[in-house]
């Protein structure tokens, strides 16, 4: 199941139509200061249009950093990221980001939140409200239109965040542990919901998680990261047929494989933290 990573030629890179293509991407935080630390090293990764890819790795391995780099919210220290043949240097509505914590604007109603991006483009209120209503129907929250975010549960808020991202019709949906703060039952519901939305929208999804179950349930491919500095340890193909039976022997095998891959990295991350504590 482990696919071998072939180095791509640069000609292939520049003519490709990948949803996301990373070449030799690295990131050093606080470069040239005593607090510099290397988050990512030499990331080569291609994401096809419409593909669902999970980023799995020990905490602090830089998987979220990679997501921010792909979003264009941070600059790479080395290498290059392209999306549909365009160099990523700034954020773009083509690549929507959904955060772990709620990121709704507390002073706006649900529908105003959902249509925030459209109002940035100068669309009128009536038209925005229509689009927001449809997007909210899509996520099953049409009745919550006029509520404020603090009146919603955590799961509902994340659904609003997804609706907001979808109104921008993104080609790539970047999700940074979006369901980590939810309880187990809600998270499973949200996973089903996300798969629905994903198949509907045709967007690529990049999904950061540290839950092996989540990666097994959702992803076409699972990118496993090493401990700091984050490198791609391996990419695991997940060919379980959809809708997935998560209790099948194959699913169990995949879980075991991912657990073993991850265990070494978690051990290393722990050892490193211990060492840091001793020097401190």
């Amino acid at each position, binding site marked *: 199941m482990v696919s071998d990573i072939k180095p791509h030629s640069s000609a292939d890179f520049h003519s490709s139509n990948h949803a996301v293509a990373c070449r030799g991407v690295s990131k050093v935080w606080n470069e040239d200061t005593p607090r510099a630390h290397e988050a990512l090293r030499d990331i080569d990764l291609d994401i096809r249009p419409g593909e669902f890819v999970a980023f799995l790795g020990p905490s602090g391995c830089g998987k979220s950093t990679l997501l921010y780099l792909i979003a264009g919210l941070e600059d790479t220290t080395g290498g290059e990221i392209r999306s549909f043949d365009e160099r990523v240097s700034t954020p773009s509505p083509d690549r929507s980001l959904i955060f772990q914590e709620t*990121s709704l604007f507390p002073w706006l109603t649900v529908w105003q939140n959902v249509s925030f991006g459209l109002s940035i483009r100068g669309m009128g209120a009536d038209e925005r409200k229509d689009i927001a209503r449809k997007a909210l129907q899509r996520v099953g929250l049409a009745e919550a239109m006029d509520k*404020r975010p603090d009146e919603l549960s955590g799961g509902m808020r994340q659904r609003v965040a997804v609706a907001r991202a979808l109104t921008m019709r993104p080609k790539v949906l970047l999700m940074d542990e979006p369901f980590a703060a939810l309880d187990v039952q809600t998270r499973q519901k949200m996973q089903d919901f996300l798969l629905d939305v994903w198949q509907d929208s045709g967007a690529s999804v990049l999904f950061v998680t540290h839950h092996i179950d989540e990666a097994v349930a959702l992803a076409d491919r699972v990118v496993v990261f090493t401990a700091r500095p984050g490198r791609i340890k391996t990419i695991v193909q997940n060919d379980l047929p959809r809708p997935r039976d998560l209790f099948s022997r194959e699913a169990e095998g995949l879980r075991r494989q991912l657990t073993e891959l991850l265990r070494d990295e978690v051990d290393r991350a722990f050892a490193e933290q211990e060492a840091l504590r001793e020097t401190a």
Partner: protein
Amino acid sequence: MTIVVSSSDTRSLAKGTASGLRPPAPRRSARMRALAPILSRIGWAMASIGLFAGLWELLWLVGLADPKLLPPPHVFLGNFADQAKFFNTATRWQIGVAANAGPSPFQAVMITVGATGGRVIAGLIIASVLAITLGVLVRYFALVEKLVLPTVTLLSPVSPIAWLPVAIFVFGIGNAPAIFMVVVALFFHMVLSTITQIDGVNRNLINVARTMGATKWQIYKRVIVPAILPGLLMVLRLNMFGAWMVVLIAESTGVGFGLGQVITMARNTFNPSLVFFTIALIGLLGFLSDWLLRLVQKRLLYWVPQATGGLRGL
């Protein structure tokens, strides 16, 4: 059957209506229920002030508080007209005007309060507008930060008292130096706290706007300003007390009329009753203005959850 309703009876009255002992009056009982917490708050405020005043009266009663130096509340509040005559705003500097001419004592007190309150409000508004604008500019333009922030930080620990001579040199005597004093006392802190508020805005909110293609200007207008409003209003509330303090110092230098001027006069004429009377007035005004600002806060910041003693359960 007659039923006498006092505030403590509201609960039993509501119960009575619910069980159908009386003809239903739902609107009334609902209003009563809404009123109950307010009445209770007022009651506790009275109890708090009553306790303080009671202790004072007790000290006077047993002879520990000399009524010539520390006159108890019933003395300095007892004779309103006697105190209010010192507030007379009409006759003080005019020749050939009878002592009884001009506004009534009550009107005189109101005019004085209005004058001082007006200076506080004018100073607060000017300081807030200037400070928030400058604070946002500092974060918006790197050049403004480099040029302005060091000076603001340098000047912010300077006591308003030190500005007093400057106020007089530049603005002479009158309203302008008093308002200037309020502004200068608040301005520098408010610039710094505006910057702190901006730095504290949740990065996710800004990043969401960025990924949606918002420009820097749009991010400031649509995300940062609403996000810092709650903090700024809190800062404004705290600074309002500061404004009430400073305005008295400013007024003591000489303005037509004002509470600070009355206090200074009370000091010069050795009139402790008048001092305490004015202190009581200022306290009441500060309390009222805080309440008003809280009301504004509730209306303006409908999305901010109301803080209600989170540690009460401990």
